[in-house]
């Protein structure tokens, strides 16, 4: 029984791991083609992503900081996907919540602890509301959630740009940004010199809660059943429409949380060009992470590390464009999509494995 579970987990991570390895090999080939040192590149990429040069200056800390919003938007995508909704509205929900965080951060003044809590809750509410819209459109009018969330994403990008340029703009001289939020609105940081802090704890707690919600509660069960088979849910009497709307609300709240954490823990304000695609990174992390909260957690960290390593290591140290990092991620996604490619190999390895085990077991018994 235990073994079967372990086997299942291994099965689940095998394909992403193989895909990432293939992506890295491909990266090596591309670097070799540009005439740069291949092995050194790997080394630099990893040390700048996960290494520790000095005890006070660990790359992994920055990687974890960067992974935090991706974990949260990834969880948002997991909740939607598991409920049968292909919502990619994470970016929009994240941006709308960021506006709320930025605004509440300097417009209301509350004691330390209370202020942050109020903003976190408000951001989740804003994200949830922005997720509720495509949910209702889907259930009541049959509007495809993929299309509606794309539109809502564009709208949110425009709104945040407007807010930064006009109503919330701090001064007219430099690039547009909103005022710095109150100290009482900021999330504590673990180590000076990085922005890794309480936001990461929030993300870890969210991973665990989403797992419990989806697999251990009645509501999560309803959402998964409706997501996997509409006909089966109808047949069994599952209220699918309610489940879908609930899924979009929770998905939105999680993406909203990502916005809160980014603003309160990292940027402390919103500025022009705030949308950097963290929502889409979450979608990717969800897909690579087998739409599982734990998978998302691991993939988000790898992801953030790869980006950081490409930026700090490959670009700054070796002069290889950091876009290569993004290219590798693109390839990895491609490899996951082509996972059939690995299945044959996995199968033969496994049957060889179990056969040798069987032989051993038989030998021992005789």
């Amino acid at each position, binding site marked *: 029984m235990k073994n079967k579970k372990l086997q299942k987990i291994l099965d689940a991570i095998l394909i992403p791991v193989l895909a990432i390895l293939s992506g890295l090999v491909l990266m090596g080939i591309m670097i070799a083609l540009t005439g740069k040192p291949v092995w050194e590149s790997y080394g630099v990429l990893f040390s700048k992503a996960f290494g520790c040069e000095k005890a006070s200056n660990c790359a992994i800390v920055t990687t974890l900081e960067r992974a935090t919003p991706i974990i949260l938007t990834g969880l948002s995508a997991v909740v939607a996907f598991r409920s049968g909704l292909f919502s990619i509205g994470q970016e929009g929900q994240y941006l709308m919540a960021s506006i709320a965080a930025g605004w509440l951060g300097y417009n209301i003044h509350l004691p330390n602890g209370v202020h942050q809590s109020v903003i976190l809750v408000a951001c989740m509410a804003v994200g949830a509301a922005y997720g509720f819209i495509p949910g209702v459109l889907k259930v009541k009018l049959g509007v495809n959630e993929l299309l509606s969330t794309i539109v809502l994403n564009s709208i949110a990008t425009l709104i945040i740009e407007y807010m930064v340029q006009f109503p919330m703009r701090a001064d007219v001289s430099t690039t547009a940004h909103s005022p710095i939020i109150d100290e009482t609105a900021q999330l504590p940081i673990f180590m000076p010199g990085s922005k890794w802090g309480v936001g990461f704890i929030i993300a870890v707690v969210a991973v665990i809660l989403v797992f419990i919600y989806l697999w251990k*509660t009645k509501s999560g069960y309803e959402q998964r059943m409706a997501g996997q088979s509409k006909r089966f849910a109808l047949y069994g009497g599952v209220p699918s429409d309610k489940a879908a709307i609930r899924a979009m609300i929770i998905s939105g709240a999680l993406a909203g949380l990502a916005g809160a954490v980014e603003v309160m823990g990292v940027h402390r304000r919103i500025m022009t060009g705030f949308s950097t695609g963290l929502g889409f990174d979450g979608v990717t992390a969800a897909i690579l992470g087998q739409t599982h909260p734990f998978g998302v957690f691991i993939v988000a960290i790898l992801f953030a590390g790869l980006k950081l390593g490409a930026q700090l290591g490959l670009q700054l140290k070796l002069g290889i464009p950091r876009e290569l990092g993004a290219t590798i991620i693109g390839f990895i996604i491609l490899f996951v999509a082509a996972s059939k490619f690995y299945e044959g190999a996995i199968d033969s390895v496994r049957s060889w494995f179990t056969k040798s085990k069987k032989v051993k077991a038989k030998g021992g018994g005789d």
Partner: protein
Amino acid sequence: MALALEMKGITKYFSSTDVQANDNVNLTVEAGEVLALVGENGAGKTTLMNILYGLIKPDSGEIFINGEKVQIGHPDDAIKNGIGMVHQHFKLVPSFTVAQNIILGMEPNKAGFLSPKEENKVVKELADKFNLPVDPKAQIRDLPVGMQQRVEILKVLLREAKILILDEPTAVLTPQEVKELMDVVRQLAKMGYSVIFITHKLIEVMEVADKVSVMRAGKNVGNKKVSDTNIPDLARMMVGREVLLRVKKDTIQRGKPVFEAKDVSVSDVHGLAAISHVSFNVHEGEIVGLAGVSGNGQTELVEVISGMRPLDGGNLYLNEQDITQANVRDRRNAGVAHIPEDRMEVGLNLQTNLDENLIISRYNQSEFSKFGFLLGKSISRFAETVVKSFSIAAAKPGEDISMLSGGNLQKVVVGRELSGQPSFIIANQPTRGLDVGSIEFVHKTLIEERDRGAGVLLVSVELEEIMALADRILVLFRGQIQGELDAKTATEEEVGILMAGGKLSDLQTNQAKSGKESK
């Protein structure tokens, strides 16, 4: 003369499911011979044929064609050796024409495709040669299943197969199409082809085959000449024990009405009337058989009764309560059980494990959830109970069900629906696609439920099944009840006449006529 095909000691173990799918299997076919390969679902028939066709690599075993040992590692090798396979699920391109599908992959040279005219001509000649008329220009998606199957067979014949494998070819066909297929198979045998015909319907074995090989749990448990065996004998070999082909049923006193439909009308997905003004009831301790050719409104009627589809007019009552407006969950809580016709898409969720499948209609009950949390322990205890009381040996609590055979999947559905003493059971085609052992199980269980006092509405297109189980027979024709018969006195002929839209009076006049003639 050398055998057309000999398979020796074929062995295959699937590690992912821990199944010994083929265990030292031997099989022989001569030229011009039809071999029926029978066995329950999961016996390993398809695996054996996939090995022969080069789709699966056996762990050990040898294959001889015309006495010569061959290596088949890929379907191309199989085709080179004159082996062709028509799979259980067809592999045609729906948007291509018949001719395009048949020729696909055999275009004369890489650069040039055949012109449509030439293609059609090739196919026409082929069809004439084998007396298998098809329209080369028709699109696959417009063709009935029987015709699609014919295209698959032609495809194989064009590749000059001498040994044809047909994997459960009759499972998807109407009785008329089955008859046509049988004729085709016999004709091919006469022309010198060898046919391996997989089925678990024993009647078909007796009709079409010369020889029969029986498989059970991966082993080859019998090879016989059809003339030397009979259906009960084969059923016993298949299942490994004595099987009741017709279950025993005592007459019991029925109780008060448990379900009633009054003047019910329903439209189908296109908004056309599927059921119009239908009224009937089902009593406690009674099996009402709803007979009819498929497509006469059965699907819609069952969906309305179970609450999955809204009705256009009329009322439904359960134990004298009006349930017309009640949703699925309320109806289920009130004691309705539903064995749906489509167990793969409707009755089960193959993407999740046994436990989650078993609680779909009861996860809201306090036994299985509290304060919004699922009670994992009681759920797996329940799963264990269902597995035990319905002896679903292959299913294990907490594990996936997607690899279970059709019979075991149906046992899961039946186990779930009949646990908890429902008062009214809708069983829609409950034995479709099942093998004899599983059919016996489902029939026995339904009769036990009736004896316990439940009312059962049995919807079936199998006349045999209605005759065996029902206490009262209703015949559905074009969305209306064409007639009602007492099962004790009804004959198959009478039900057949009603199913075809006739009236019982027709039968009487016919009989009177033939009576006169014979005088």
